[in-house]
């Protein structure tokens, strides 16, 4: 019979603080935005607005916060990041490629028949993807399981889960919220990508989701609101968690759907719309990123 000792307990060796400046991070975010716009265009895949709104959250997590090593993506001591809003997977694929989990050239196969990059990730198909998401309301609960495992195995892993505001319609999000608080899982952080839209309407009109900070606090979490496009502010809160010992942390990130491209910003048509050639070029021009970058 196996014991916990048989599970590899190697500690990370490559956790040098990264030296990227804030300017570097802004450039990385612009390049990621350009990349997901091209992926949507080339792969004829929707959910571009949702992908653009969470880019800065991903940059803050992957360049400032997560204890991960692309060389050992299954290290049991790694931090876990789950993009529970799986429809924004293009943003996650682009981030993982840029962070070195696989060759960025492979992103050209996004949504191409037979490739390992479906519109929403399948389990373990791509290094760095912790869970197959796409059906909303699963990621946080899966993350809590990982956080519990970390506790039982006596590891020091953090779990960061990104939810959309529309996703907070799902009842399981609030089941998970109550459970995490009861178990005092303070190695868990939720980031709500609060772009104020869901698929077909304003999120605050579909369901009474506001006030989100108060809601998470009422569920026993530490909760703060932050500009979801301020990478350093996001990183400060992620690294500052737990904000209160014994409490999980919710960061409500105020974002703009379609962020970074003027004609996409806060226009919910871009939930499903796919850019044509002219729109692609206009977007790349605006981001100041060359088409072949």
């Amino acid at each position, binding site marked *: 019979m196996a014991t916990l000792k048989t599970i590899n307990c190697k500690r990370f060796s490559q956790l040098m603080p990264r030296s990227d400046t804030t300017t570097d991070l802004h450039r990385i975010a612009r390049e990621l935005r350009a990349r997901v716009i091209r992926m949507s265009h080339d792969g004829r895949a929707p959910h571009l607005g949702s992908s653009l709104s969470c880019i800065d959250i991903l940059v803050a997590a992957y360049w400032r916060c997560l204890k991960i090593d692309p060389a050992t993506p299954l290290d049991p001591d790694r931090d876990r990041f789950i993009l529970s809003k799986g429809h924004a997977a293009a943003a996650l694929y682009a981030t993982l490629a840029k962070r070195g989990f696989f060759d960025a050239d492979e992103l050209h196969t996004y949504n191409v028949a037979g490739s390992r990059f479906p519109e929403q990730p*399948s389990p373990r198909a791509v290094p760095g993807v912790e869970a197959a998401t796409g059906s909303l309301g699963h990621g946080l609960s899966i993350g809590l*399981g990982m956080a519990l495992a*970390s506790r039982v195995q006596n590891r020091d892993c953090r779990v960061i889960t990104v939810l959309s505001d529309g996703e907070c319609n799902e009842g399981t999000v609030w*089941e998970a919220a109550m*459970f995490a608080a009861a178990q005092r899982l303070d190695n868990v952080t939720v980031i709500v990508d609060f772009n104020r839209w869901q698929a077909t309407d304003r999120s605050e009109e579909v369901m009474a989701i506001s006030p989100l900070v108060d809601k998470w606090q009422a569920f026993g979490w530490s909760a703060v609101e932050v500009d979801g496009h301020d990478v350093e502010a996001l990183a400060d809160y992620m690294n500052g968690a737990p904000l209160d010992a014994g409490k999980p942390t919710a960061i409500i990130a105020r974002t703009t759907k379609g962020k970074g491209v003027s004609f996409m910003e806060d226009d919910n048509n871009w939930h499903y719309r796919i850019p044509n050639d002219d729109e692609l070029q206009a977007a790349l021009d605006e981001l100041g990123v060359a088409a072949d970058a």
Partner: protein
Amino acid sequence: MRNAFAKELTALGEQDERIVLLSGDIGNRMFDDFKSRCPGRFFNCGIAEGNMMSMAAGLAMSGMRPVVYTIVPFVTTRCLEQIRVDVCYHRVPVIIVGVGGGLAYASLGATHHSCEDIGFLRLLPNMTVVCPADSAETRGAFRAALECEHGVYIRLGKKGEPDVHRQDPTFKLGKAILMRDGRDVTLISTGNMLPTTIEAADLLAASSVSARVISMHTVKPLDEETLAEAFASTSLVVTIEEHSVIGGLGGAVAEWQSEHTSGGGRLLRIGTPDHFLHEAGNQRHARRVLHLDAESIAARILQSSRHAPP
């Protein structure tokens, strides 16, 4: 059955530190032993089965062996989406244990009956479905489930069922157990219908019908070898289950038979009908009303045998 499960869980939990137990606010006192002998590995997840099932998947993704336990409808259909996506699609070793299979909780009303769960879970890829007949098969099923790298659903009765096996049989998932040989008909039981099936076989013997009795604890994967032999050697094969005749053992055998046998024995499916039971009454009452008692089963088999083509 459930006490045998709790005991086996505790014994194995002491040996294997990967085992964690997630309970949906049920099993009061039943898991006290597990809690004290496997400290830090019991989680009362409240009445929130969707979250509980996804957490189990997350635990399994991190190398643990989660066991999820509550009443059958709540640990199966209530969180079917989480089983499908998080457990089955990810192919992780989560053991789902449901208590009160079929009509075990008849008196609590149809919210607590489970006559569709085998069908729902059998449909899912990367899922094994096993319905132990008694304490011995429960122990065997749980030990075997721990060796699997994918999801396993174990459908228990409740407590106090008669022990059919005098000693623990050789238990292998997907391999049925021959309880009694016979020449005329084959009775294939799954789960807690086994004692009733044996009783029905006794009644048939009194009417000079020789019945073979098989405990087909695993509904998925089916024991095809045993089925082939049953259809080849007896003129009537009867599936008996406390589950709808649609989708359960009978449904599975009918699917198999449609592609694998020609000119062999006929199939008779005995199970619950395609409607809900609205009236009060315990399991015994419910079985009688739905013709799942030994007398009704024997009578139906005799009638079917008489109408068999020569």
